């Protein structure tokens, strides 16, 4: 027994901070999340992107033990979320999409309330974030603007120095200045410790800045999961000019999205390779081919459009 225990501890310390295995959730007949498998290594930041209803929030809610898991497993820091939630919650921080909390409390009361549940609460972290965000602890929650509420939410989620931070579209509907402050707060936390972060977002610029890896969800399924830099280097937008009156004959299997307009054939491919381009030119009646890099925002749109186009 003791060896098994030793092994569990070993995997817990070295294994990924977050592990999803075949995670599935159905609502009625439709799958909100289907067979989702991915891992977030310790100390890295994963940006979870996808259009509305892609299953980002459902995934995060299952991770937080707020939704039951229909099939598959989710583990945080090596612990199964359906069995160890109270222990896991001591070691993670969570910022929900809607920052709703006790409106009648003062910030100081809300801090005191939250603080009492954590063994590792650090007043210094809390105070420095209060200062950074310029929050007045005597203010009541109901007097706070949305931006201030989001900052309070972050402060409450990180002051117990969590090993994992989970943010569910934390910055939606915030003005650019508040976003900047919020990201600054998150970065400070990430820099202070080797904190693992999972955040879902619509703002791809923020994902590009904050995330090591990106996971793209569509219709509850994982489309892409890779390092952001790798994705940006490997994916290309190809523009080919077709000869008069002909249509493309061969389409690379790596195509994410394509469009033909007059003589212009646009394709987004991932990954792009010289071999692919050679074959493209050899197999198709094209005059010339031009290759450009493509930003995360466009890449995301192409993935979504490509999916919608195919039945």
């Amino acid at each position: 027994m003791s060896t098994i225990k030793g092994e569990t501890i070993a995997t817990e310390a070295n294994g990924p901070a977050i592990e999803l295995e075949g995670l599935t959730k159905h609502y009625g007949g439709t799958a909100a999340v289907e067979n989702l498998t991915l891992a977030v290594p310790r100390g890295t930041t994963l940006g979870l992107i996808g259009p509305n209803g892609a299953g980002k929030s459902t995934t995060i809610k299952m991770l937080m033990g707020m939704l039951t898991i229909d099939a598959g497993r989710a583990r945080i820091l090596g612990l199964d979320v359906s069995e160890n939630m109270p222990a896991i919650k001591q070691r993670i921080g969570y910022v929900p999409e809607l920052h709703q909390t006790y409106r009648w409390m003062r910030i100081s009361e809300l801090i005191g309330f939250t603080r009492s549940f954590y063994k590792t609460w650090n007043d210094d972290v809390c105070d420095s974030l209060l200062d950074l965000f310029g929050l007045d602890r005597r203010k009541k929650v109901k007097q706070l603007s949305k931006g201030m509420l989001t900052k309070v939410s972050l402060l409450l989620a990180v002051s117990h120095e969590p090993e994992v931070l989970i943010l569910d579209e934390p910055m939606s509907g915030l003005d650019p200045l508040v976003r900047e402050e919020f990201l600054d707060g998150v970065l400070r936390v990430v820099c202070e410790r080797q904190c693992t972060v999972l955040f879902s977002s619509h703002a791809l610029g923020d994902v590009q800045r904050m995330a090591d890896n990106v996971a793209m969800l569509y219709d509850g399924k994982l489309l892409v999961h890779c390092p952001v830099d790798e994705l940006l280097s490997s994916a290309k937008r190809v523009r080919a000019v077709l000869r008069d009156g002909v249509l493309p004959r061969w389409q690379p299997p790596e195509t994410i999205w394509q469009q033909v307009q007059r003589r212009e054939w646009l394709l987004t491919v991932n990954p792009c390779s010289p071999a692919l381009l050679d074959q493209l030119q050899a197999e198709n009646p094209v005059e010339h081919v031009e290759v450009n890099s493509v930003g995360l925002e466009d890449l995301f749109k192409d993935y979504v459009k490509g999916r919608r186009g195919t039945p």
Partner: protein
Amino acid sequence: MKIDPNNHVPIFLQIVEQIAASIAAGVFRPGESLPAQRSLAVSLGVNPNTVQKALDELERRGLVVSRRGVGMFVTDRGNESALTQTEEVVAEAFRRGLIAARESNLTGARMMKIFENVLLEMYESRETP
């Protein structure tokens, strides 16, 4: 330094290019230290792992050298290497412009003319006090 999160150039490469340009411009001289990874991350608003990746790349290119526990220092040849790097970046920018020109079937003579005009524009505006 300022990074553009919407640019399609990976952020770590943007940081590499900008630090290289700063070294070439003499902001950081040989033997001097670069700002720490954490402070770079917070000031640029990017993930510290990304900054580390950029610093590793700079070290691989021989612009900086890491001294354990102290930080990153510009190498003796850092300045020259950075200039070479910058030349490479400039060449790449020219290449992109030339590709655009070729797309529209511009002749070599017209391209030279454009280049001369741009050059004159920039240097005249700089020399006039």
